[in-house]
């Protein structure tokens, strides 16, 4: 909750009109979606698999330092591709329209310790529906951090720069724990809940498989290169974790991004939902390669408006979306990666300390909604 509501100048009619204009952008892409898009995702998947195979092949000889470097770099990139442009986007159903059962949100499993099924629930359903609503969207601080002035400060938050750093290093485990909602499920009563136990078991199975593959089987296959291969896979996972954590932090944490109160979404219209996505997300500017390596989550604003449009279309959609931001005099939060990462981390540090209560508590739009 910022002191001043940046959407206060919009009337209810304007917000609905904005919603219709965004719907039109979406319809245009859907009508035009076709062969080229399908070829794109197939090419990316094929390239990722080849890169992973080659990198793991090179790592068989990782006892030689140049092989270690090349293999580790390749495997890091392959894991980032699998996680971001491929896994995240397929699991959003962005490619379901192809009706290819091998590239489908209901069948895809990624190289990540969080089982796809659980991640889809906490990410697609909770985070994307309740984007930036305090108490509803657990992505806000992942339940371990304070990310807004209005959240109550607790001495625990003094350590949040450290929690955030550790979360970055072991991000995939953080996500798995987060999908299990460990925070609220660890009480004695909840722990015994059979539904929770089944989910915890599924995570356990996935972790076992992932760890066995990365830290036992592949090192063993490397024979004399056992230790270097082990170090290489650990490094690749670390690189992937820190990279994805950084990209994701840039999506909702930088300064200028709005958060919302629980009651502000009561009776929310389609236009208002769109507006919340616009104000609650932030982009990363950069080259084509940059967009690709972030899985096009650099277009976080567009992704949040249209989570099921194919990721390769976000760049062209962004031009139109940005024009709407200008038209309705809204701030399009974007910047290069280092700037956005710094901004997000700055907030983590700043909010680890207590602050004065902001003067204006409820932005106008919310008051209007509560009254309505």
């Amino acid at each position, binding site marked *: 909750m910022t002191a001043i509501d940046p959407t206060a100048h919009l009337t209810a009619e304007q917000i609905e009109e904005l919603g219709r204009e965004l*719907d039109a952008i979406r*319809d245009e892409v*859907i009508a035009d*979606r*076709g*062969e*080229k*898009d*399908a*070829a794109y995702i197939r090419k990316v998947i*094929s390239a990722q*698999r*080849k890169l992973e*195979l080659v990198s793991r092949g090179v790592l068989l000889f990782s006892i030689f330092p140049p092989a270690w470097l090349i293999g580790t770099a390749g495997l890091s990139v392959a894991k980032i591709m699998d996680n971001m442009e491929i896994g995240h986007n397929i699991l*959003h*159903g962005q490619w*379901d*329209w*192809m*009706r*290819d*059962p*091998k590239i*489908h*949100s*209901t069948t895809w*499993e*990624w*190289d990540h310790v969080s089982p796809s099924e659980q991640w*889809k*629930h906490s990410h*697609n*359903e909770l985070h*994307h*529906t309740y984007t930036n609503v305090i108490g509803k969207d657990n992505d806000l601080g992942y339940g371990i951090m304070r990310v807004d002035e209005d959240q109550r400060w607790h001495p625990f938050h003094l350590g949040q720069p450290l929690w955030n750093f550790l979360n970055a290093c072991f991000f995939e485990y953080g996500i798995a724990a987060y999908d299990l909602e460990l925070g609220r499920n660890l009480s004695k009563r909840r722990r015994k809940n059979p539904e929770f136990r089944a989910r915890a078991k599924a995570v356990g199975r*996935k972790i076992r*498989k*992932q760890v*066995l*593959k990365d830290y036992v*089987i*592949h090192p063993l*296959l490397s024979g004399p290169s056992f230790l270097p291969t082990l170090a290489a896979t650990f490094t690749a996972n670390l690189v992937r974790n820190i990279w994805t954590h950084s990209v994701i932090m840039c999506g909702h944490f930088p300064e200028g991004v709005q958060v919302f109160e629980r009651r502000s979404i009561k009776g929310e219209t389609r236009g208002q*939902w769109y507006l919340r996505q616009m104000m609650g997300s932030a982009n990363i500017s950069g080259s084509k390669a940059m967009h690709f390596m972030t899985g096009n989550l650099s277009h976080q604003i567009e992704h949040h408006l249209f*989570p*099921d449009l194919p990721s390769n279309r976000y760049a062209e959609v962004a031009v139109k979306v940005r024009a709407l931001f200008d038209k309705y005099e809204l701030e399009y939060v974007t910047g290069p990666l280092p700037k956005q990462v710094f901004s997000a981390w700055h907030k983590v540090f700043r909010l680890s300390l207590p602050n004065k209560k902001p003067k204006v508590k409820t932005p106008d739009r919310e008051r209007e909604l509560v009254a309505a």
Partner: protein
Amino acid sequence: MVTTPLLPSDYLDLVSPLRAGADLRGRIEAVHPETGDAATIVIRPGRGWRGHTAGQYVRIGVDVDGVRLWRAYSLTSPTDRRDGRVTITVKAIPDGKVSNHLVRRAKPGTLIQLDQPTGDFVLPQAKPAKVLYLTAGSGITPVMGMLRDSEIDDAVMIHSAPQPHDVIFRSELHALVADEKLRLTEVHTDTDGMLDIARLDELVPDWAERETWACGPAGLLDAAEEHWTEHGVRERLHTERFRAGIVVTGDGGEVTFSASGKTVDADGATPLLDVGEEAGVLMPSGCRMGICFGCVTPLKSGAVRDLRTGKITEAEPGVLIQTCVSAAAGPCDIER
């Protein structure tokens, strides 16, 4: 464990998609035009192909504009083709997405998905002495598979097509006639009108003694079935229908939740998710606004309308719909 979460086959598919043990696929090797709107597609099937019997059809999955669509086509190649290739012959039907794609745009080198051949529209093991083939339009395709595969001593064919140049395989048929392997009557419906089944007596006086294989539009097959039944020789008639039925689309309709055995009436504006929950069916759900894909469910038959775009989706194998933003567009069957 080596490749988790993928399977080793996911990697092998990169280099050898037609190998033994892979999901069954085929590669289009050539497309030969037959008539103005029909073409024969030469396919090299993967190693898992089990072979077919003349007259059978195969379901193929083709990506048209990036969307995988499945259709069934009769196999027209003989069963003993040396090079292991098989052919289907496709007639482009108006607005037919797959048929037009295959006839006009399919390129050699393209991979397609295949099912094993199937169908019981085939000649019996013991070849009958006298045979009648009653065909129209692309109904000739399964019969062509039979003609190319097995010689019958006394074979008669009545084939209907709008004009002579619309007759698929015309020169090959005439060659068979020249070799006295077939007696053929062509009915050109643009000039002669539709075949009147009552003319059978005149065209093939001993039709009732012949084992008959009929394939063509529903009108022809209905008339044939009636005629053969009337004369008490229905068991001699074998028919094959290409299209099971046209999907009726409308506004709302009767919704069947086949897994739970419930049927309810739904209007054209209520999401199927709500319809199901109202009826006490256990429905998976998520965001309820079409963004999380937590509610996708197989559409087994019928059609639904996307409430956001108005787009109609018809049931096909493998089609999943988002129940939270789809409403009944006519009768439909949801697998819940």
